[in-house]
């Protein structure tokens, strides 16, 4: 239900006339639901911002929250819900901050007993409802972007490139290798190859639960890219069930060296690069 121009100006009047009372009661109502997790001063400032935003909007004759006159009010509301979402308040606690205004308005208008006041209150309450829903939606958007940020951080963390030996770097892959991760892995690996001047790279897939054609294709592309840069790639961590699945799928790894374990791969590389490995030394001594 939209506000009429007269209702809007009556709302502006009401909020302006009772400024102190509105902010005081509104702050108190919110403080009750926050149980002391926000300081009184902080709450008061937020309420004053909201109050000012509502006055500005209603003085310009706001009809509903989607209208142009409410743009500043919307900004204040998004700011509020962003802050709440980041501080870890629930969606309900955030929306209640706005809905609390209804009680305050009811208190102010109770002594007016004519039918017009009732209609006004219903219209005001509808605006507050819109504000509450808007807060809710911005809250969800903020949380979604927080989750996206975290997923990105996880992506960064979950793809380390480690130096195993002089001239040997390894990428232990864990979990699902989707296109985004494959891209990060390839970039990291190629950059590390340049930075360390390593001629060998080991891609370990022990932690990849299933190797399907997409995963295989990502690995193959990474190997080809590393070869173009003059580095040899070995794929390790191919468990029996993965080997059988790869065969059934018909994936060919061609002349790419593959090993069952990371240790085998490292031994293979060290032999290629002429480093004496423990097993050989042992045999010679015997």
């Amino acid at each position, binding site marked *: 239900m939209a506000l009429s121009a007269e209702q809007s100006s009556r709302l502006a009047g009401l909020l302006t006339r009772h400024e102190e009372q509105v902010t005081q009661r509104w702050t108190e109502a919110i403080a009750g639901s926050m149980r002391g997790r926000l300081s009184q001063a902080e709450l008061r400032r937020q309420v004053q911002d909201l109050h000012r935003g509502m006055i500005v909007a209603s003085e310009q004759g706001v009809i509903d929250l989607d209208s142009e006159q409410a743009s500043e009010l919307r900004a204040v509301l998004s700011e509020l819900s962003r802050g709440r979402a980041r501080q870890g308040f629930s969606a309900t606690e955030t929306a209640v901050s706005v809905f609390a205004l209804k009680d305050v308005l009811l208190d102010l208008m109770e002594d007016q007993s004519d039918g017009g006041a009732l209609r006004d209150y219903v219209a005001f309450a509808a605006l507050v409802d819109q504000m509450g829903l808007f807060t809710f939606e911005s809250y969800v958007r903020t949380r979604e972007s927080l989750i996206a940020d975290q997923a990105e951080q996880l992506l960064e963390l979950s793809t380390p490139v480690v130096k195993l030996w002089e001239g040997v770097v390894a990428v232990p892959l864990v979990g699902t290798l989707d*296109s985004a991760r494959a891209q990060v892995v390839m970039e990291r690996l190629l950059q590390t190859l340049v930075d360390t001047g390593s001629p060998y790279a080991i891609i370990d897939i022990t932690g990849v*639960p*299933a190797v399907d054609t*997409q995963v*295989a*294709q990502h690995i193959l592309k990474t190997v080809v890219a590393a070869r173009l840069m003059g580095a040899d790639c070995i794929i390790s961590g191919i468990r*029996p069930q993965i080997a059988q699945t790869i065969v*059934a*799928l018909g*994936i060919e790894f061609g002349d790419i060296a593959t090993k069952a374990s990371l240790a085998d791969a490292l031994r293979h590389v060290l032999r290629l690069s002429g480093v004496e490995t423990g097993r050989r030394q042992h045999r010679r001594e015997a």
Partner: protein
Amino acid sequence: MTTGVDLGQPQAQAIRSDEDVVRVRQLVRTVAVAVKLSLVDQTKVVTAASELARNTLVYGGGGTVEVSTADNGRRKGVRIVFADTGPGIADLDLALTDGYTTGGGLGLGLSGARRLVDEFDIRTAVGEGTRITVTKWSR
């Protein structure tokens, strides 16, 4: 994870994004473990499901999957039905040829998935969509 899955009921899941493909894999693995498939067979059926779910997403434009347990009296198994209402497959023999792809992949997804499962049934009509039913039995 997918704990608390009621295995008596077929589990339905939409395939709309890459994350859904991951969920399909987890769901299939849960059911495969529950019907006591061997580790190799679990991996095979999960991989087949991964291929077919991705096909549903990439070529079918998204769709649904239904995972259920199967029982033929002697053995138990996992049955998975992929359905989409996409463009369908015009030349099924060609699509099932190793190395044939229209999407830049390896061209082994559909043909490979068929080799990974025990029963493979595909129904498709151009303009109407594709429905693939696969079953993997325990040994």
